[in-house]
């Protein structure tokens, strides 16, 4: 995470902003930073920071990079380093001894006595007294130094994510893997809506409380979406972010120099789904749970069912709803009737509201979806569809 004061961005027309990326133009001063860092092993964190300011900043400035970028890169790189406390005796022990002895003694007397008790020279005691503070700890380098190009990519991702951390709504355009976005949103408690258009899918992500006011509470989750998005082809993103209390629009797209090696987030397998897959296999009824991505288009909106039941006779979509209201269900049912897709909605009866009389396409469950009842309902749906089209 980069702090506010290290964010480096450019303002476009209106309130739009884009991050100031590091590119191959910056490799000269990044090389200087990498070279300087070779001498940081064994130095204190504060001393290393000072050296970055003195030695790297002036060269970066010659190449058009400001102090924020230099400190930001060093902040990202320093996370890979470890720190150790350079003191023979743990500083906390030294403090207990010295401060205890100093009550009722003069300073030199207290240091002399502490020196005897701890086996350290009085000067060492003063040096080690606070050797465990973050800035006085000594740096230990990571296994291998980075190349300037790696440094730039890592920094760019950190910068984009730090800006997204301040977002309250993200609108992304994706051409593939929209389903992963659904899984991601569900996993992180975000709300997602989807619209399809010629070039792909528009996904809008925000948190429940965002309905009431601009909130950056979900920024962490929204920022976490970026690495997965950046590996998809021809993506773009517009995020509403708050910078210095004011609203801006952050715009990013596939031309951004971001790392593309990130793994996609795993889709969130629910326990209900896993158990159901096993139960259906045990029935040996000829039906199976399919894992391929199914998308249903309802007008311009898209609908991603939880999974699909497949047999030689056809396909039936299955949606498992833990919580629901009659209104929600009516909306969903109406939308899907419009496209005439066979669908079974499984509702948790503990959270069922209002009229629960059996209706076509609705199956109540308690804790575990009854596989045989689901298969029977699927058969019935297909039968009804066949009858209707006949």
């Amino acid at each position, binding site marked *: 995470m980069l702090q506010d004061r290290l964010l480096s961005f450019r303002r476009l027309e209106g309130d739009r902003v884009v991050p100031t990326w590091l590119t191959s133009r910056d490799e000269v001063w990044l090389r200087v930073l990498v070279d300087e860092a070779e001498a940081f092993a064994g130095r204190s964190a504060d001393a290393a920071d000072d050296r970055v300011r003195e030695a790297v900043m002036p060269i970066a400035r010659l190449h058009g990079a400001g102090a924020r970028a230099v400190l930001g890169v060093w902040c990202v790189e320093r996370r890979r380093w470890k720190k150790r406390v350079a003191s023979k005796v743990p500083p906390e022990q030294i403090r207990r001894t010295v401060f205890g002895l100093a009550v009722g003694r003069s300073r030199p007397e207290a240091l002399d006595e502490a020196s005897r008790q701890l086996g350290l020279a009085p000067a060492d005691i003063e040096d080690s007294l606070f050797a465990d503070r*973050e800035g006085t700890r000594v740096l230990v380098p990571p296994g291998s130094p980075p190349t300037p190009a790696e440094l730039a990519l890592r920094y760019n991702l950190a910068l984009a994510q730090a800006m997204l951390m301040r977002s309250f709504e993200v609108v992304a355009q994706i051409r593939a893997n929209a389903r992963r976005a659904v899984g991601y949103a569900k996993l992180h408690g975000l709300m997602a809506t989807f619209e399809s258009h010629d070039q792909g899918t528009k996904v809008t992500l925000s948190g429940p409380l965002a309905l009431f006011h601009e909130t950056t509470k979900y920024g962490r989750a929204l920022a976490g979406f970026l690495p997965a998005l950046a590996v998809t082809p021809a993506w773009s993103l517009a995020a509403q972010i708050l910078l210095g209390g004011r609203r801006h629009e952050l715009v990013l797209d596939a031309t951004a120099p971001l790392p593309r090696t990130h793994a996609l987030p795993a889709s969130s397998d629910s326990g209900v789904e896993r158990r159901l897959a096993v139960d259906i296999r045990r029935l040996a009824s000829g039906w199976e749970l399919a894992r391929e991505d199914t998308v249903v288009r309802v007008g311009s909106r898209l609908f991603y069912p939880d999974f699909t039941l497949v047999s030689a006779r056809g396909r039936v979509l299955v949606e498992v709803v833990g919580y629901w209201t009659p209104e929600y269900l009516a909306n969903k049912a109406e939308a899907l009737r419009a496209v005439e897709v066979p669908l079974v909605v499984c509702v948790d009866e503990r959270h069922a509201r209002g009229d629960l009389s059996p209706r076509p396409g609705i199956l109540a469950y308690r804790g575990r979806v009854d596989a045989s009842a689901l298969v029977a309902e699927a058969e019935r749906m297909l039968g009804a569809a066949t009858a209707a089209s006949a």
Partner: protein
Amino acid sequence: MGGHLARGSHAASSVTSELTLRFERGTLVIDGPWGDEVPGVLWDPRSSSRRSAAHRFGALVTAASLRGATITGDLRSGWAPAPRSARDLGLRPYQSQALAAWAAFEQRGVIVLPTGAGKTRVAIAAILNVGVPAAVLCPTRALAAAWKVELERWVGAPIGLIGDGHRLVERVTVLTFESAYRHMDTLGDRFGLIVVDEVHHFGGGVRAEALEASAAIARLGLTATAPPRTSEAAAAIEELVGPVVFEMGFADLVGTHLADVTLTRIAVRLEPDEREAYERGVRRHDELARAFRRAYPGGDYASLVRAVAGTSDGRRALRNNAQALELAAFPRAKRRLVGELLSRHVGDKSIVFTAYAENAYQLALDNLVPVITGETGVRERQYILDQFSKGTLRTIASARVLNEGIDVPDARVAIIVAGTQGKREHVQRIGRVLRPAPGKHALVYELVTAETTDARRAHTRGMNAPRSSTQFPSARG
């Protein structure tokens, strides 16, 4: 129109007036034939449902009872009350009055009591009396640990803690503001009462989500310094917690329920080289500030900073000015003076407050006294406070960490080296030495650098702050 209203009121008496609620991630999903007229209920196109932030639950319950409507999914069914007497706490009369005032305001409101007057006791009494599952929110991890200890003592049951690596929910659970901000959206349906310590932090709208995501109907805010009644901050706190229901200041308590106190302001001068560096540091900033005020009479400091930060000259001026202020907050004369004061009060328990953590470390090294800052670990902090409590350690240096909190043991002397946070910080620091003890007379020394911004800050923060309760002849300066 009249016919429509008549149908509406008819519906209110039938089963169709039922409202169903579901807690979802810090919000309530609302289903039923009415609800839109309750403030804060909106249609959410993302889920095709009505939705409100969870803290509107109380308002929804009230609206439902006015209509005689039943609520399905009523969160209160998970908050079965088990009220208990708070007699063992031995509340002082004004503490009982505060509690009664809060109860009279339907258990929603803020109690304002000075540091040392026992706000914690009032809150614990409220938790026992109301008897529903409760969350206690406080600003820091240090405070959360202290609350947990105090609650364990009086509640007599395991106390939950969320934050600082712990994630344990119990019937009474302590959360830091940060952990409440992160986790209340998943826990917000579990608590019927929330206690918000140092509630003034929520005046600025920062992390308000911590309170919005909780459905608790009973809400108690605690502070030593409530924002002015007509301010935006007061309105924000009233919306999320409630109005100020009880207020008592230092003047009401000093000498009776709080110790007598003498405040001594000591002026120091910059040495010639420091004076030169100071003047050099502030010069450009002051020029820019004068130009800004000519152009925008009445413009506040935040807009000045925004205007100035646009140029590299302006940014440099701000940076140099900040360095000059740091210098004025801790010149050599103050550093020496702290040493003198500490040796004068070698037998007294003293707390030294600095504006910056670095200054606290410097004083710790100079005088070989323990220091507590944000960097100090939990174990060491507790060790220092315990030893201080016992009297085996008699001085603590600190920047801001000890400004507020329930866990700081009693002290007799406060040395205020400098402050950056204004009046509130000043009041809280003085409060640290006001806990009463037989025959106790507390001393507060405030060190001020003459003819600098440090002196102006001291003047501003001193307004409305506690005064000496008796005249004491030892002032120098």
